[in-house]
């Protein structure tokens, strides 16, 4: 029983950490219509920032600042936001497809930097022994993970609540207006490029936040944690849950992460160890199938966008 509860806590922590990145993507794609194909890159920026800011000092690698957890979270959001600002300034005035290509490129480049800039990222070995904020408060793994779950629920809750407020604000309505018809929005005196940039940066900050929490929980970071498959996973979570609905984003994260981990468990039991690479490929094929079938059969997701109609309107 304890085993099941421990696993459930562990599962929920990761699912909720991913859901924060999905919320960020939802702001970009669901509400503003921006195609970010580089989610894994922005998560990586946040993750490495956290690792450098809060980690212990290491030989031949920058760091050793040992800053508090909260400062690490804020720093991760800032660096991810800054990376988004640079990419956004160059690409957001262009057609949507070019944004997809450019963000895909930034993710590839960020991974290269993670692999090769050893002074900052530790290269292929990555950075280890990043402090877990729940560790000093508790003893025993279950208690530690439960406290961490509370932290994730707290941080994720703040992100969710703020996003719900944001998308119902005038600024949030403007996002949808730009998504539906940028020219019409511009004719009303709004600046689509500027608002797209704001939404893009804010969404990427949430991805950075998610990466920072991931690193604090796992305790180490390496370039292989941010392969492009992460981007696919985050996208599938959003599409399954339903874009332009924050509840859908969280639901999708839990469902898809559940499918991913349980299929991984089943495959590891069934597939002999010699061909584990094929087992991993099966999981990826499954995710790809879910994504494509969902787009074909139920494009709005499990719980899609709700119509937002003024109280004063009569339909």
């Amino acid at each position, binding site marked *: 029983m304890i085993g099941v509860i421990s696993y459930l806590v562990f599962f929920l922590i990761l699912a909720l950490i991913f859901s924060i990145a999905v919320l960020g993507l939802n702001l970009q794609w669901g509400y503003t*219509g921006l*195609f970010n*194909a580089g989610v894994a890159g922005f998560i990586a920026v946040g993750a490495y920032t956290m690792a450098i800011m809060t980690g212990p000092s290491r030989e031949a690698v920058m760091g050793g600042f040992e800053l508090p957890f909260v400062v690490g979270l804020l720093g991760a959001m800032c660096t991810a936001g800054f990376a988004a600002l640079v990419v956004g300034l*160059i*690409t957001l005035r*262009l*057609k*949507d*497809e*070019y944004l*997809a*290509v*450019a963000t*895909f*490129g*930034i993710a*590839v*480049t960020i991974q*290269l930097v993670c*692999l*090769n800039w050893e002074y900052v990222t530790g290269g292929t070995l990555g950075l280890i022994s990043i402090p877990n904020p729940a560790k000093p408060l508790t003893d025993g793994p279950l208690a530690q993970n439960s406290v961490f779950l509370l932290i994730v629920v707290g941080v994720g809750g703040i992100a969710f609540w703020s996003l719900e407020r944001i998308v119902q604000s005038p600024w949030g309505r403007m996002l949808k207006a730009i998504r539906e018809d940028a020219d019409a929005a511009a004719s009303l005196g709004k600046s689509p490029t500027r608002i797209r940039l704001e939404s893009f940066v804010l969404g990427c900050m949430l991805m950075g936040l998610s990466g920072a929490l991931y690193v604090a929980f796992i305790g180490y970071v390496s370039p292989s944690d941010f392969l*492009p*498959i992460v981007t*696919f996973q985050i*996208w*599938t979570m959003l*599409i399954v849950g339903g874009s332009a609905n924050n509840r859908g984003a969280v639901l999708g994260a839990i469902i898809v992460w559940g499918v991913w981990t349980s299929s991984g468990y089943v495959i590891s039991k069934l597939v002999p160890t010699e*061909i584990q*690479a*094929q087992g*991993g*490929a*099966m999981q*990826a*094929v499954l*995710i*790809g*199938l879910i*994504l*494509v079938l969902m*787009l*074909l059969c139920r*494009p709005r997701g499990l719980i899609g966008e709700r119509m937002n109609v003024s109280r004063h309107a009569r339909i």
Partner: protein
Amino acid sequence: MLLQHIADGVLSGAVVALGAIGLSFAMKILRFANFSHSELLTWGAYFALVFLGFTTAFSDFFGGNIGPLSFGWPLLIAMVLSAVATSVLALVLHALVFEKLGRGAGHMTMVFASFGIALLLRHVVVLIWGPNPIYYSNELQFAVLLPGNVRVMPDQVFLLGLTIVLVVSLHLFMTRSRAGIAMRGVSENPDLARVSGVNVDNVVRWVWVIGASMAAIAGVLYGLTVQLRPELGFGLILPLFAAAILGGAGSMYGAVIGGLVVGLSENLSVMIIPTTYKPAVPFLLILLILYFRPDGLFGERR
């Protein structure tokens, strides 16, 4: 050293150019950035491997290797069969997914679906052929020394020659044949082409067939001169997009020149930046071109 880098750049650029032709057409005529296009290169290369198994069974009939090349007629026939098989694969994907989505959903949903399909295709390759690199032939090949101390493999010279032949024949197809002219018409103005009696659905199928065939041949050439691995196409996504965007969507010559520019700048970049950062060069090219000339070198301003 400089001449060697230029030679390598032209050779790798030729593969990128062939792959980028289909991508460029897709961006202009199918109106979406097809992220799964590069997986057609992978599938083309592996299809040829399967057909090569059949054709080598008749190698007595075909004779041995052609001249100094590392392969003979069996591989060339396998390459043609692979182009057909890859075209069928592309048409199936079009019928099952992209055609449906193109009608209802927005074009970004298609970009998105192409993402999912790329993931599927890449990992199915791992499932069928395994994750390790494979070669068409294990024969050792000796480099030929050209003037200027440049070393090239005979296979690479073949690659360049075949690319030139393909581009010239594609040029003739686009300018002389009815299907080619219809394709250009749809690319310029789909509505006008439709009212002039062009069957747009057929043109779209032609675009897939040409793009997939070129991709398959590019994949085989890559497999021949480098190796076959499941990430073959994935690693070429950015170079292909860089070439297509550089040349301007819809422009065949643009894609070819774009491919050469990408190949050259990748290979020349190692003189300034560490080799490990080479894969980022196409991305920097994309950013530069999107910033200064968003419609590409040969694209029309809209």
